[in-house]
């Protein structure tokens, strides 16, 4: 419980600390999700370093929470595998991913509701953010599971995923297609239609790929290969 409260507290701090020059407190959510800010006089979007860093920090926090749980399930792989085979093992992995994503969505919702109560206003971005967070974290989690099923080391896959996210975050500010790998991007309202279906497509593709991987040898021959 302590860890969960700590997680929500850090998330709240990230939101409060986000640089927001406008008077609209609800825009903070967009600024965290995009790593951006808005000039209140010219209405131009720009990218202060702090907001980009907060965005990356938030993503690292989310990813590490989910990946830690996935690694724990992999730690018990021999015991799980012997109790129900591959199907049960994969089900346990996917279940833990959904549980952790649900926890993150609840944490986000708590902060949103707090802001809504404080400002007595509502932003539609809340719904987009929850859907996009679910799909984006789902895609990254499935990529991580696949990399572990292929016997790739945690550090390597973690490095690739986080680097990929940072690159996508920077490029998405110019080329909206890269928002497929980020939670949000500038002009999310106008890019919502192409981005969300692509995210759903990737989510399903990676999800199905996990089920198609039928060779368990790589998982079980990780540590010692010839004893």
């Amino acid at each position: 419980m302590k860890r969960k409260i700590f997680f929500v507290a850090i998330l709240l701090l990230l939101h409060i600390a986000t640089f927001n020059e406008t008077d609209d407190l609800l825009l903070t959510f967009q600024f965290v999700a995009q790593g951006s800010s808005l000039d209140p006089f010219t209405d131009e979007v720009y990218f202060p370093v702090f907001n980009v860093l907060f965005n990356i920090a938030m993503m690292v926090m989310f990813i590490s929470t989910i990946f830690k749980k996935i690694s724990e399930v992999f730690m018990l792989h021999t015991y799980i595998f012997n109790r129900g085979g591959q199907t049960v093992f994969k089900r346990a992995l996917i279940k833990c991913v959904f549980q952790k994503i649900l926890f993150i969505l609840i944490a986000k919702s708590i902060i949103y509701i707090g802001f809504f109560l404080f400002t007595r206003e509502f932003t539609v971005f809340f719904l987009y953010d929850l859907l996009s967070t679910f799909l984006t974290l789902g895609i990254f989690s499935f990529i991580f599971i696949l990399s572990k099923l292929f016997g790739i080391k945690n550090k390597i896959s973690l490095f690739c995923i986080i680097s990929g996210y940072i690159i996508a975050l920077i490029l998405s500010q110019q080329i909206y297609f890269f928002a497929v790998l980020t939670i949000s991007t500038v002009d999310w309202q106008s890019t919502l239609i192409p981005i969300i279906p692509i995210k759903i497509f990737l989510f399903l593709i990676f999800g199905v790929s996990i089920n198609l991987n039928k060779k368990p040898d790589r998982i079980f021959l990780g540590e010692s290969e010839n004893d």
Partner: protein
Amino acid sequence: MIKLNNVTKTLKGHDVVKDVSLSFEKGKIYLLRGHNGCGKTMLLRLLCGLITPTIGSIEKDEYTYGVIIETPAFVEHETARQNLKFLASIQKKIDMKDIENSVAKVNLSDVIDKQVKKYSLGMKQRLSFCQAIMEDPDVLLLDEPFNALDTEHFELLVGMISKMKEGKIIVIAAHGIDVEKHSIFDQIVTLCNGKIESIEDCLRHLRD
């Protein structure tokens, strides 16, 4: 019965198990022994289906398995109770009372709510043994189950294994175990470089 027919497992062009034919029957305890790297663990992995043979086949009935393979691996920041509860939730065959009974058998009742990271290696080994036996499986595959155990707990586990053999296939991979002193084994299989060097019926072994 589990039957291995001319099983070979090749990894990176190297045969780690070579042309092994063996059969394991219920009600017997088997000892796999041999030097480090001789293929004991790989044979256990093949027996429980964690890996598949490159050549040959394995015939087996529908069994439930309890295994210890390699070093005990648990979620370290969780308690023994949480770890075992999670594993028990997969088959849903036992409840918390059964888990507690199994933990009591390996003398870990007083530390069941401690984080696993605070356990010594011997305690982790007993916890690992506990997770293997808690659902009363048909087949027990134990890879070096006596590692890091003190004499008291070594004797405890040996006693438990010998009492459990009725209706079960028990295969233990261990090196350096005194088979004269601990005559619980029905058959001793000695491996060398992935091949079977000898299969000894235990009564004959003791007579010799």
